[in-house]
């Protein structure tokens, strides 16, 4: 689950990490009012994507009138597929230096890792591509958290201003504490600013929470609905269904991330365009299959659906029952091809016989069939 900048900053402020003064607003009048209070300010569109500045979605306003004008220009606009409905109005600050600080889970060391660079304020992936030596890492012992001396060393290796070292250690420890306490998968401050008066502040914030850990974070659930953008993805996540919208016209449903990814590859390879990624997971019940189909069919572009199930935990007959139940009461406008193998697959395919569904045991033939049927063939 991704948090917006303003939500992440709420978390940071609660942890004692310095942030600029600011307010979240949802209309231009609110922006003007905030600007009257803050003085010279920055209008920042809230979206789950980077590169806002370059695209004109972060602007410096000298007056409340300008803040209002810029806000009106951003609200309702689309940035990288996200409709802007919220703005963060923040005090403008005098910048001396811009650093980068992030924590994420590192697959290689199997632990959290801190990433730091003196080259902040720009897209860190560009820094990684052009001058990777400017980015330094610290794998953190998950039993203890980072020690002060390790963080001082990190600051030195990243070539941060030595005068800022004490503040850096303080911010980094608080960021780590927030990361662990909220079960984050990413906590990023870019830029981590040094102001002309020497203070260090988190000028931007990115924060992703591990969805697997949401069960123990009732406090963060308030952000859940607000964090979604695509209406179908939002509905899927509300119902606890793993769904990603991909923009094509062949709906895909499978049991397990691997088989769904494999099915997307297969459909793409055969010349089709997948509409979505949907993993019903292991042990999916009839009700869950029905729910998944309903979600896929919320997308009006879907012209055909391919269900690909290989039975391990998930039993073929259960899936078949789910598909029949889901479709029996529906006025089905699109063809559904069902490919099944593994545990109780034969029973499942037998159940589908005589229904309006198209059973097909071979995965590649199933992909070809759904593409042909979706074109009205």
């Amino acid at each position, binding site marked *: 689950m991704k948090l917006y900048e303003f939500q992440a900053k709420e978390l940071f402020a609660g942890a004692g990490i310095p942030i600029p003064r600011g307010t979240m607003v949802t209309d231009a009048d609110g922006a003007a009012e905030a600007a009257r209070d803050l003085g010279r300010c920055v209008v920042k569109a809230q979206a789950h994507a980077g590169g806002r500045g370059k695209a004109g979605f972060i602007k410096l306003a000298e007056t409340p009138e300008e803040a209002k004008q810029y806000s009106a220009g951003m609200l309702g606009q689309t940035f990288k597929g996200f409709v802007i409905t919220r703005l963060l109005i923040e005090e403008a600050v005098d910048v001396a230096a811009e650093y980068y600080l992030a924590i994420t889970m590192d697959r290689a060391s199997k632990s959290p890792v801190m990433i730091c660079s003196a080259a902040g304020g720009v897209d860190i992936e560009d820094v990684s591509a052009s001058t990777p030596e400017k980015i330094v890492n610290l794998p953190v012992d998950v039993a203890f958290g980072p020690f002060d001396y390790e963080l001082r060393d990190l600051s030195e290796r990243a070539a941060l201003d030595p005068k800022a070292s004490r503040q850096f250690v303080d911010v980094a420890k608080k960021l780590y504490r927030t990361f662990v306490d909220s079960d984050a998968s990413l906590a990023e401050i870019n830029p981590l600013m040094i102001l002309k008066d020497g203070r260090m502040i988190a000028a931007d914030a990115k924060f992703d929470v591990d969805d697997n850990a949401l069960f123990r974070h009732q406090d963060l659930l308030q952000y859940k609905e607000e964090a979604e953008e695509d209406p179908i993805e939002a509905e899927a996540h509300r119902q606890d269904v793993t769904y990603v919208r991909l923009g094509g016209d062949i709906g895909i449903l499978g049991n397990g991330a691997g088989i769904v990814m494999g099915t997307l590859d297969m459909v793409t390879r055969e010349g089709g365009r997948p509409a979505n990624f949907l993993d019903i997971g292991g042990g999916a019940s009839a009700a869950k299959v029905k729910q998944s189909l309903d979600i896929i069919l919320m997308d009006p572009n879907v012209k055909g659906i391919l269900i690909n199930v*290989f039975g*391990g935990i998930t039993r073929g007959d259960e899936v078949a029952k789910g598909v029949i139940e889901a479709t029996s009461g529906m006025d089905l406008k699109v063809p559904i091809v069902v490919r099944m193998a593994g545990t109780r697959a034969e029973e499942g395919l037998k159940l589908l016989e005589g229904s309006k569904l198209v059973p097909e045991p071979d995965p590649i033939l199933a992909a070809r069939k759904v593409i042909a049927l979706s074109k009205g063939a």
Partner: protein
Amino acid sequence: MGILVGKDTRLVVQGITGREGSSHARQMLDYGTPLVAGVTPGRGGSTFEGKVPVFDSVAEAVEKEGVNTSIIYVPPPFAGDAIVESAAAGIALVICITEGVPVLDTSRAIKYINEKGGTRLIGPNCPGVMTPGEAKVGIMPASIFQRGNVGVVSRSGTLTYEVVDLVTKAGLGVSTCVGIGGDPIIGTTFVDILKMFADDEQTEAVLMIGEIGGTDEETAAAYIKAEFKKPIFGFISGRSAPPGKRMGHAGAIISGTMGTPEAKMAAFKDAGVPVADTLADMVQLAKNR
């Protein structure tokens, strides 16, 4: 022979009285897996299927039944602790099937295992390990397996079954099939398994099914290039997935240019590993080797 599980396995099921745990325990017993104990806290003293003793703790199962392998079906909030309990009891091989374990819990459990030593973790979020004809320690459908000389290692569950099914239909068989798990942080990686396959006499060729994200495939490719001598064939899943949808921002920084399907395929090619376009093609390559 095969690797990890076999005739010497003495298995305990953690969460044996739960819905998934009991259903799969029954299937493992039917297959002939040496399943000798179950654990469900509070249910000690009872028996499963009238013959398998159930204990309150893994330590008790070790003491009374001499178990050396555990398989975990407990729900996600308790899975991290279940891994640590097994390691603390001295279990040599812990296989965590549970999907949805908080990543920090896994990280902490692995930290514990590494400090203590003597335990290998497979998973979480994996289908388990199977040596056909000897032991099935997992959730894979046994009927699709034939005993043979092909080692299979994969990050996916269901995609692994596809491969095994194709292997069997091609008239080949499997030495051991290992699902290492689809989570970002897992106990055992491709390289660990490849080293075991290298030393296993039964395994003559290996099929490796990777997927997008992380750099385990690249690390494996470097190892294969340096010292893996057996024929090995690769497949990368998720090639059509749009960038940014599944891979975290900072994860891409650590990896630099690694992690994309293109990088993985390039690393395989550089290591001399043929990368197939479809699973069927990969199995065909293994057959024609």
